[in-house]
């Protein structure tokens, strides 16, 4: 259905090729999963295979891309190509143009030259297989990440092509939502659809993947049946990372002084109670993981630690001070918060300036040395002069952590620090956090990854519906 013959590609205004001599063949009814570190060229490959690079980007293309037995250059426009290939991009929000779920899918159906009855029939069918019926009148900003991904997928299915290309459809989803997407895709494959899937989470998709492709530095470094490739230890570490080696011999001493104490904390957004009577004590030097499904109140809880949110009821005490009596700027010295999407913070021209921003804001002494140390810890010394947005996702994640670490807070809180990273990159991030813990920092991470929570943290707190339902370190 799709064939790439010795394809190399260089984006306009760049020198380094993004894709280098790639040959790949996707047969009807099969599923290929492409994996590899961030910045390896996986998205570029997806754009090449769908003909988008050829039709929209310009740049230098060598080799041949064949879609449905025709070279992509034979198709006149992208809309022509779209009759054969459906692409679900990673940013679900950007793929919603209308303001209700049903409208979005209906509008996509209307442009296919079907009869009105046929459209209604397909609409019902698609809503059913993507489980969107109860959400049909919702607007995009009232949907969770997983629901948005299902809408993006449904609207692409509406185009009715047999080939589907999906670029990290589950990167920001929790386990439950990921399993749901995997189930939908398995159903589509069973119907005879051909799938090209860019993913890091092999374990949830293992049942349906026929061929595993590993990409590194713009080229395919391994390709074959998953069970064959996974015998290679290096590839195994990338797609099925083992975090169990992180377990420390002795957990942090329970006698250390408390750095965060939460008493009867409640928080409401309007009439919705997001946190309900939460009690918690975290001691200096602990490595705590907070797990729970999307919407269980994890992010709401940690935003109280540096007063981005103020309690509706109860108290939060950080280093002996009630946060109600501190300003956000004050608390930034004690608590560093790294958000899920690193791109929400970058604005400087260089990596170094980006780190310097927080350091300057807090007027930290000996700034030069502090910044150098943060660069080194993040493994970004060589990239200090680059534009932050040019870095790969893994590097940007480490930079976001470095920006906060350089501000020297005793407590570092991270919201989903391994999103969109492969096994090795995730390990790098965890390693960085482990080192910080050894230097005396208290680390709190929010994660969907149960392996990371179980093996890397000293203590796992599970939240559900705004409450803590279990705590392995119950102090």
């Amino acid at each position: 259905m799709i064939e790439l013959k010795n394809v190399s590609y260089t984006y306009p205004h760049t020198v380094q090729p993004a894709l280098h001599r790639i040959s790949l063949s996707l047969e009807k009814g099969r599923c290929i999963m492409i994996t590899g570190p961030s910045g390896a060229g996986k998205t570029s490959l997806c754009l090449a295979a769908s003909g988008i690079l050829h039709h929209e980007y310009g740049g230098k293309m060598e080799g041949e891309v064949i879609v449905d037995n025709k070279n992509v250059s034979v198709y006149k426009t992208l809309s022509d190509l779209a009759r054969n290939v459906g692409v679900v991009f990673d940013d679900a929000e950007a793929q919603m143009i209308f303001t209700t779920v049903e409208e979005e899918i209906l509008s996509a159906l209307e442009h296919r030259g079907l009869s009105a009855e046929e459209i209604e029939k397909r609409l019902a069918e698609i809503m059913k297989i993507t489980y969107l019926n109860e959400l049909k009148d919702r607007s995009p900003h009232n949907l969770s990440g997983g629901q948005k991904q299902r809408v993006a997928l449904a609207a692409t299915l509406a185009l009715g092509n047999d080939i589907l290309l999906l670029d990290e459809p589950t990167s920001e989803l929790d386990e439950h939502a990921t399993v749901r997407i995997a189930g939908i895709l398995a159903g589509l494959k069973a119907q005879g659809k051909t799938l090209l899937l860019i993913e890091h989470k092999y374990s949830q998709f293992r049942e349906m993947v026929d061929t595993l492709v590993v990409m590194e530095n713009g080229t395919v470094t391994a390709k074959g049946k998953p069970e064959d490739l996974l015998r290679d230890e290096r590839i195994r570490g990338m797609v099925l990372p083992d975090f169990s080696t992180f377990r420390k011999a002795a957990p942090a001493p329970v006698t250390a002084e408390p750095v965060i104490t939460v008493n009867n904390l409640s928080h409401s957004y309007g009439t919705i109670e997001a946190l309900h009577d939460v009690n918690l004590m975290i001691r200096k030097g602990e490595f705590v993981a907070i797990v729970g499904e999307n919407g269980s109140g994890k992010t709401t809880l940690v935003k109280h630690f540096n007063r981005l949110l103020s309690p509706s009821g109860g108290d939060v005490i950080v280093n002996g001070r009630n946060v109600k009596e501190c300003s956000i700027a004050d608390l930034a010295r004690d608590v560093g918060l790294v958000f899920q999407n690193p791109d929400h913070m970058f604005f400087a021209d260089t990596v170094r300036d980006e780190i310097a921003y927080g350091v300057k804001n807090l007027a930290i002494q000996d700034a030069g040395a502090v910044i150098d140390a943060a660069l080194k810890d993040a493994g970004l010394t060589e990239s200090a002069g680059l534009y932050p947005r040019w870095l790969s996702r893994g590097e940007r994640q480490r930079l976001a952590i470095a920006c906060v670490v350089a501000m020297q807070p005793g407590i570092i809180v991270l919201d989903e620090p391994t999103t969109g990273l492969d096994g090795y990159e995730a390990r790098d991030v965890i390693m960085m956090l482990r080192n910080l813990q050894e230097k005396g920092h208290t680390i709190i991470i929010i994660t969907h990854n149960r392996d990371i929570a179980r093996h890397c943290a000293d203590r796992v707190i599970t939240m559900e519906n705004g409450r803590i339902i279990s705590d392995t370190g119950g102090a």
Partner: protein
Amino acid sequence: MAEILQYVHKDTFLHQLHPYTKIAFIIIVSVMCIIATDPAFLALMGVTMLAIAASGKLLAESLHQLKLIIVMSVVFIAITVITMPNGETLGHVVPQAVPFIGGLIPITTGGLMIGIVLTLRFIVLIFAFQLFLISTQPRDLVHAMEKAGFPIDYVLMFIIALRFIPTLQIEGQRIHEAQLARGYNPGTGFVGKIRSVAPIVIPLVSNALLRSNVLGLTIDMRGYRTGKRTHVRERVFMKRDYAVFAVLAVAGCGFVALVLKGILV
């Protein structure tokens, strides 16, 4: 979070009207409130808008804009009082007892009146346009605008501009929080204020540009710009639309008659 100008899905008389009917309503209302200068009449129109909103179960959404409206009213009235003194003097912003500058900026009936009329006009216009946008499904709007001969690219641009308001609001909020956690300090003084904008605006614009790339590809791949479309669930003119047109015609004629008699202006 208040969702500015977003379609609110409900099943009411107002929602079921044809977009053309609502556009006609907007045009008539706009013309009326621009011509009329009688504050009592304009206030009545404002109340009518709210009554219509209530009939469409959209009163709460309409009142979301109250804060904006109050701020706007104060600014308008202040500007007209200061710049358009006319008629009787009611008092002075700076009391006459103050030495040297006492008696500056008189508050006049004329200035006050112009301010009130301007404010009421804007209130009516804001309510009317908002009512139109939040009760009309974007799809219907696209169809109506396309039929009216607008090029599809412009129609999509209009729809997308509205659709992404809340997305940008939420994103701006997240960026603001991320920078606050890094000790972001909204600057003081003119230069400080300008500088303090960079950490918020640069990520917001960079992310929006990235997003617009995906959005553009999506529009092309779904074939929205080719214009070939099967018409499904199209709104057709119903009895209710004719009824509204009749009401609008009567109101329009009545208005013209009153204006010709010299009432309302």
